[in-house]
């Protein structure tokens, strides 16, 4: 994986000192809170309901054991002994003191980590496929391109005060595991006639106005990647709306101009930009790529002993095909039944770090589904790995099931939320687990947001739940039919909302409809797409 050289290290070190100085000026009264706010946000520091929250960047979701151990240390030293992994492959700490923030950033810098641009109206941490470098179905490893973009977007002088936040995802497979088309810019690395290049999508997003990004360019040559991104951002910086923060994302610009007109403007800017010479030398991409060469995979058994049904179920549910046939990628579920989605204790982080060293070439991933992943595990080691995970409460065999819920922090932490998300996720997973229905229902992606900002990706859930405030009480709207994957679609609202108990019952009812009507091999989503909304509405409101 990528390692800093002296330049990268100097950049994060300089950033720590810059932030220390900003915090000093804030404390001395030289900066107003309004002036300080964007500066702390660009270092990942939010003010939430009860305390500051610090969001640490995990570029394209890749980290090593030492970095994970540092995240555990921070959880213990500066927080309450746990952290929360997010849908953009980052980690958040919910109980941070402002006066500790610069020291935490310094601790992070020692292990080549940072919180740069994890918030603010700038280009955020670049996300990617959590199976990158391991998946059998990828064209190339997308992470070198994500790293190239990380460097380009870090402290970009022109794009630090954009109309609104800006999220980029990079994938390199026909299978989308990064919600690529629900990003401000989505990039898919493709191969055309033996040449590698990039498809560009622009103007996707969730929030209060969900949009699926249209393609704006089907092939950008590798030696023009940064130039094209620069052109796309400049058009947005100049013409994105600034009169209304709810209409300021690039999706609104692309929608209002139309994809064709936005594309025309980008192409015009791109033609100009090519003459400016902003592209890094192609040798830089080659240099980065050498950091992502394959570990020394070894041949070995390709099958497991299935005599233990619990182990066999975990392998079936939580492992993914690897490009080397004696290995798999293994999901470490952070969704224990009744637990808080995405939370991990310091001890769990340390265990996962140790297992990564022992079984996965010192590599770990954070998944956008708020789980962790060991990307390169020998099939021969799976039983030992599972035993260690299971003993630590990390062996839930529930990837992509109804227990594998994405949920935002909701009203338990977030100052924007209208309703709680976490308790609802806990109750739904308990209900299905206790009834033994999780496996029966199979793949079902349920996503919960505690407000219209959609941090819990409810628009992209096979089942989505949106918490709203209805005359002072929490109310939950149910929606069906969303997907963040290659078959991307936006979920549709079923009808009037429910209270907490009601929405849990409603989730059960829609799964009843599915189980009663599904054809062979159909997932919940497939059945919904085949039979439409009406049968579900009938069951809910009829």
């Amino acid at each position, binding site marked *: 994986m990528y390692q800093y050289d002296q330049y990268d290290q100097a950049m994060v070190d300089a950033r720590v000192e810059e932030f220390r100085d900003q915090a000093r000026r804030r404390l001395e009264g030289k*900066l107003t809170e309004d002036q300080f706010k964007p500066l702390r946000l660009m270092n990942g520091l939010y003010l939430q309901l009860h305390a500051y929250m610090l969001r640490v960047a995990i570029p394209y979701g890749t980290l090593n054991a030492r970095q994970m151990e540092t995240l555990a240390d921070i959880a213990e030293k500066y927080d309450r002994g746990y952290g929360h992994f997010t849908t953009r492959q980052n980690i958040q700490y919910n109980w941070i003191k402002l006066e500790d923030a610069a020291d935490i950033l310094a601790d992070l810098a020692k292990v080549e980590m940072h919180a740069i641009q994890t918030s603010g109206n700038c280009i955020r941490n670049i996300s990617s496929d959590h199976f990158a470098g391991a998946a059998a179905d990828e064209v190339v490893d997308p992470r070198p391109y994500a790293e190239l973009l990380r460097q380009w977007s870090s402290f970009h002088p022109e794009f630090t005060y954009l109309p609104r936040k800006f999220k980029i995802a990079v994938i390199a497979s026909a299978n989308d595991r990064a919600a690529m088309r629900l990003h401000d810019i989505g990039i898919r690395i493709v191969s055309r006639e033996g040449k590698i290049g990039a498809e560009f999508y622009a103007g996707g997003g969730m929030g209060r106005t969900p949009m699926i990004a249209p393609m704006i360019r089907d092939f950008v040559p590798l030696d023009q990647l940064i130039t094209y991104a620069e052109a796309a951002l400049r058009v947005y910086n100049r013409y994105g709306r600034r009169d209304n923060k709810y209409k300021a994302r690039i999706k609104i610009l692309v929608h209002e101009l139309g994809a064709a007109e936005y594309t025309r403007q980008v192409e015009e800017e791109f033609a100009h930009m090519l003459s400016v010479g902003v592209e890094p030398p192609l040798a830089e991409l080659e240099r980065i790529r050498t950091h992502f060469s394959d570990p020394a995979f070894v041949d070995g058994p390709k099958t497991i002993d299935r005599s233990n049904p619990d182990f066999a179920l975990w392998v079936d549910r939580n492992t993914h095909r690897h490009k080397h046939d004696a290995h798999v990628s293994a999901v470490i579920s952070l969704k224990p039944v009744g637990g808080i989605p995405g939370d991990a204790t310091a001890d769990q982080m340390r265990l996962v770090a140790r297992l990564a060293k022992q079984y996965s070439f010192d590599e770990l991933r954070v998944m956008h589904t708020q789980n962790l992943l060991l990307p390169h595990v020998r099939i021969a080691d799976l039983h030992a790995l599972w035993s260690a995970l299971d003993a630590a409460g990390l062996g839930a065999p529930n990837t992509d099931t109804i227990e594998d819920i994405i949920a935002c922090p909701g009203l338990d932490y977030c100052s924007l939320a209208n309703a709680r998300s976490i308790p609802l996720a806990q109750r739904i997973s308990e209900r299905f687990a206790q009834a033994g229905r999780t496996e029966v229902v199979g793949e079902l992606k349920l996503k919960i947001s505690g407000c219209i900002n959609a941090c819990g990706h409810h628009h992209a859930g096979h089942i989505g739940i949106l918490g709203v405030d209805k005359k002072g009480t929490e109310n939950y709207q149910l929606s069906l039919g969303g997907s963040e994957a290659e078959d991307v679609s936006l979920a549709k609202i079923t009808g009037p909302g429910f209270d907490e108990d009601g929405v849990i019952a409603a989730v059960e009812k829609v799964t009843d409809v599915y189980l009663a009507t599904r054809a062979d091999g159909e997932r919940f989503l497939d059945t919904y797409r085949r039979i439409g909304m009406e049968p579900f509405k009938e069951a809910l409101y009829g």
Partner: protein
Amino acid sequence: MACKEAEMADNLGTSPDEVQFRFRDDEPVDHGTVTVDAALDQTNATAVRIEPGDDARALLPFLERLALVEVNFPAFGDGRGYSSARILREAGYVGELRAVGDVLIDQLNHMRRCGFDSFAPDNRLDEEDALRAFATWDNVYQRAADPGQSGRRTIAEQRHEA
């Protein structure tokens, strides 16, 4: 409209006295600026003020006669002026490029990198803090409009020097 704005020209813009930081040796322009619209009508205007919504490219046909372009930042969070500045420098503008308005310490470095070479903040900045801000980064990841004859060598370029 353009005529009325031209009459107001004396009141528009900052005077050399208001410039707190200047990275040029030539004499500053000692008269007011006109709006972009007015500049398009007045063939003799040498100083222009760009507002956030103005298209900096409208000035490209007249760049040679311009000695001062002010870019106004009515609110520091409105980043359109950074693009305006780079567009002018990319087009070969070599005159003074002045950031005016809600210009704060922590924006100075990025503004300098986008081609600004003078700064007239609404509220005077702490000199020491400002000079530290200008010098925050020894190196940069991106090619922009950094000062220097042929721009500043980026980190990537330095990594791959022969």
